[in-house]
């Protein structure tokens, strides 16, 4: 098996790069639909390869322990590719008809590839390089929405991201300068828990990751970005990079570089960031009237739940990974539903109240949104429940019961804003200004199909473990 392991990293990467390059070429030759199609197919193929290798291969280090791939890492990467593919398909109307659309699809593909490498990276230098790749792709995706607000959000995102990059580089410089290695394994052997310099490096790197995740107090960019970005693209931006950053943090923190035994303060710092994110995200979410902005704040809280798993240390490894995947699919389903609603009602102002009458107009989209929102709340029968159940269980196992209690209380508060979405959709539609909204899209637009597919994934993932038992799920994620 040893010699086939590289396929879990190189093959999907090659497929996606080739797909993106050929897609852009086709676009340059004015075959837009074909170009977008090539990109989508390459992402689906990468999803297939990663999924298969994740289920069949155990994680194995590659290239002199610069990368590690297989098992849970490949499963997580496969979900990233899946969401990227769905994101391209969801925005198909623009993707296949405009020059910018194909470019955006290609950028999404490169970003997904960057996240895959980030998940697999075992070297600080590589980690920072791909973090930058993902960030630059992110700036482009945000400004791609067009308009002044998008430009402004992209610029703010860029400036704040620049500061985070500075932190990371400083952290890298400190660690490399003192301990002479960028490789996790090398650093792990050299690092000394008592060293203040090492602690400084740790804080700098944690801050940078907190920014990438949108964890408090580095979260202020998230609501703006989610609000102005095209919903199909936001589905990718709000989900996939979080899988990447959480998985990368798992490599750096509980078991790896700054492991809990030598750096107990790291665990404490993560627990504090988790609690702060839960409080700030949920309270911020309560005040929002815009649906996507609310999802931005709720994302801050959700990252907090993920960090609970991380704070639980090694016990929480699989749990955190599962949480990252379940959250990503849930939030992607929500944004795909937003994309479909936007296509259906072009004059919708994006507010929660503006969803009134949706259930009567397009029941299937309303139900998709219900599924996504209940999953994000963490209600059983939906995928999000398992993620939350597992991170809270690991927190209790690690003796962090207070953090688990903070998590469940946060989930309860979160229904205050998620519930508003449900209530609004099932309210009578008479409140829509200008009489009855005229549906502009055809019934089976690609955005609607993607919304339904992602909602189905969330339901199947929520009910499946009840029947198979959670051990089956855990086994997928066992390192």
């Amino acid at each position, binding site marked *: 098996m040893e010699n086939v392991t590289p396929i879990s990293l190189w093959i999907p990467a090659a497929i996606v790069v080739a797909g993106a390059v050929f897609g852009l070429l086709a676009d340059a030759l004015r075959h837009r639909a074909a170009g977008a199609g090539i990109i989508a197919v390459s992402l689906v193929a990468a999803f297939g390869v990663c999924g298969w290798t994740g289920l069949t291969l155990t994680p194995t280090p590659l290239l002199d322990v610069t990368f590690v791939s297989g098992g849970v890492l490949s499963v997580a990467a496969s979900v990233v590719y899946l969401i990227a593919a769905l994101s391209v398909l969801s925005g198909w109307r623009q993707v296949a008809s405009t020059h910018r659309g194909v470019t955006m699809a290609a950028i999404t593909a490169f970003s997904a590839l960057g996240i895959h490498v980030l998940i697999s990276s075992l070297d600080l230098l590589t980690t920072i390089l791909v973090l930058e790749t993902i960030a630059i792709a992110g700036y482009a995706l945000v400004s791609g929405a067009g308009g002044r607000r998008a430009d402004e959000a992209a610029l703010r995102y860029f400036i704040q991201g620049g500061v985070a990059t500075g932190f990371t580089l400083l952290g890298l410089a400190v660690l490399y300068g003192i301990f002479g290695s960028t490789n996790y394994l090398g650093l792990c052997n050299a690092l000394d828990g008592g060293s203040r310099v090492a602690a400084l490096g740790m804080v700098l790197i944690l801050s940078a990751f907190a920014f990438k995740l949108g964890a408090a107090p580095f979260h202020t960019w998230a609501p703006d970005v989610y609000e102005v970005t095209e919903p199909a693209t936001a589905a990718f931006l709000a989900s996939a990079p979080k899988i990447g950053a959480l998985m990368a943090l798992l490599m750096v923190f509980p078991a790896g570089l700054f492991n809990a035994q030598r750096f107990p303060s790291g665990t404490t710092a993560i627990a504090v960031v988790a609690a702060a994110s839960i409080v700030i995200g949920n309270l911020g979410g309560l005040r929002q009237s815009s649906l996507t902005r609310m999802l931005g704040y709720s994302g801050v809280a959700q990252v907090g739940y993920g960090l609970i798993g991380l704070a639980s240390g090694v016990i929480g490894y699989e749990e955190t990974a599962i949480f990252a995947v379940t959250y990503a699919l849930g939030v992607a389903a929500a944004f795909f539903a937003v994309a479909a609603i936007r296509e259906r009602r072009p004059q919708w102002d994006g507010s929660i109240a503006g969803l009134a009458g949706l259930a009567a107009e397009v029941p299937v989209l309303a139900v998709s949104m219900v599924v996504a929102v209940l999953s994000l709340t963490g209600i059983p029968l939906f995928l999000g429940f398992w993620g939350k159940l597992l991170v809270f269980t690991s927190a209790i196992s690690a003796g962090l019961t207070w953090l688990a209690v903070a998590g469940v209380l946060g989930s309860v508060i979160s229904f205050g804003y998620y519930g*508003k979405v449900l209530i609004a959709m099932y309210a009578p539609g008479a409140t829509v200004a200008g009489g009855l909204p005229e549906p502009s899209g055809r019934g089976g637009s690609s955005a609607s199909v993607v919304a339904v597919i992602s909602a189905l994934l969330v339901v199947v993932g929520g009910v499946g473990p009840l029947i198979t038992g959670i051990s089956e799920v855990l086994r997928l994620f066992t390192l």
Partner: protein
Amino acid sequence: MGVLLPVLLPLVGVILVVLFGGGDRSRSRLLASIFALATFIVTLYLAAALHDGGSEALRWGIEAAIPGTGFVMLAIDGLSLPLVVLTGFLTCLAILSSWEVGESPTAHHALLLGLEAAVMAVFLADNLILFYVAWEAVLIPMFFLISVWGHENRRAAALKFFIYTFLGSALMLIGIIVLARSVQTLTIVGGVGAADPASQSLVFWLLAAGLLVKVPVVPLHTWLPDAHVEAPTAGSIMLAGVLLKMGGYGLLRVALPAAPEAFSAAAPVLAVLGGIGIMYGAVLALGQSDLKRLVAYSSVAHMGFMLLAISAGTSAGIGAAMLIMVSHGLVSGLSFFLVGAVYQRTHTREISRFGGLGSKIPVFGGAFVFAALASLGLPGLSGFPGELLSVLEGFSRFGWWIAPVGVGVVLSAAYNLYAVRAVAHGTLAPEWTDIADLSTRERIIAAAFIVPIVFLGLWPATVLSLTDPVSKVLALTMGGGQ
């Protein structure tokens, strides 16, 4: 396999109603009632099977690839059977009472069947995770039933209902996790051993947070009047008749075996909470001007008796609690049905605007008086034996401390008779001169409630003999003796 059917049949019903209902009222309600009736018949069959099997629990489950890790584990025994039959019965009547539902009948009936499946899964769950999953799943159909088909302030009430109960159950989830880590098993029926003594009171109070919100006890009850008043009739019947029973059932099924010592220690607190509920519910019921709110507060009082009975910790007390739950399911179901019927005709629930309905619409009046008498605990009707037993058991455990409960008993007579006088007696208000009496369908529903209320009043042993084997074991666990 039979144990699965009460969960599976309504779920199949949901799918068929959604697929073939097509927004058509008569087709949706026909399909829904067929499945509700079939489910009820299955529950009766289970009762017979359990009776033949000498009260040994019946089990069914899907074995996971790794033994002991599957979640779909169901069991039925004397403790769950009465509530399972009650759920099957009330769902039939709830569907029958929303026969004329106007707005999206397909979704309405599908949600009612979904609610039935979820509640059945709560009562049948033999696995802590399944128990929690079902517990939360109940919220989803109920949330939509209230927020879409309810009255004026339905949206706020639905949100409040969801957040309140979710707050309780989220803490309960933490309790379940702590418990499962302590006892190293997820099996419930006859399986949950006691958690280690050090963590028992933590486990108990975390579980109780979720269970007591659902009961509900004062001061965690404030979601209940709002939810009841705003819910449509079928929703109210299910909410009062079945959902409130989940709290008492959970206390007996999970909290007591999991933390017997903490339970014993908490018994006086539970008794006080029960006593407060009895009195506070009765006082507030007396002060209501809204008829539906009056019935809602009476539920708080009745559930107070249930809690008092449980806190006695004896086998007879546990039997009494089960009896009160079944009886309250029937009596409150009848009351909410009648309030819904009169609201449909008058579009008001304002007590002061009624009067003299007994002479104008005698069948309704008669049924209303019957419901009030059943609610105040008239001997010979189902409310009496359970509440009497509850007070007796409470007295033998806590002595004269429970004397104030007597005030609650008097008050319960007062508010029920007040409602009778204000609605059925007196002079007829001129605005209701051409009000119609109960239709044939409504008479059938009322009769279907009345027959078991009388039956249980005369033969309470039907329920007690079922619960007896289980309640003896539970009482022993707690060291409560007889």
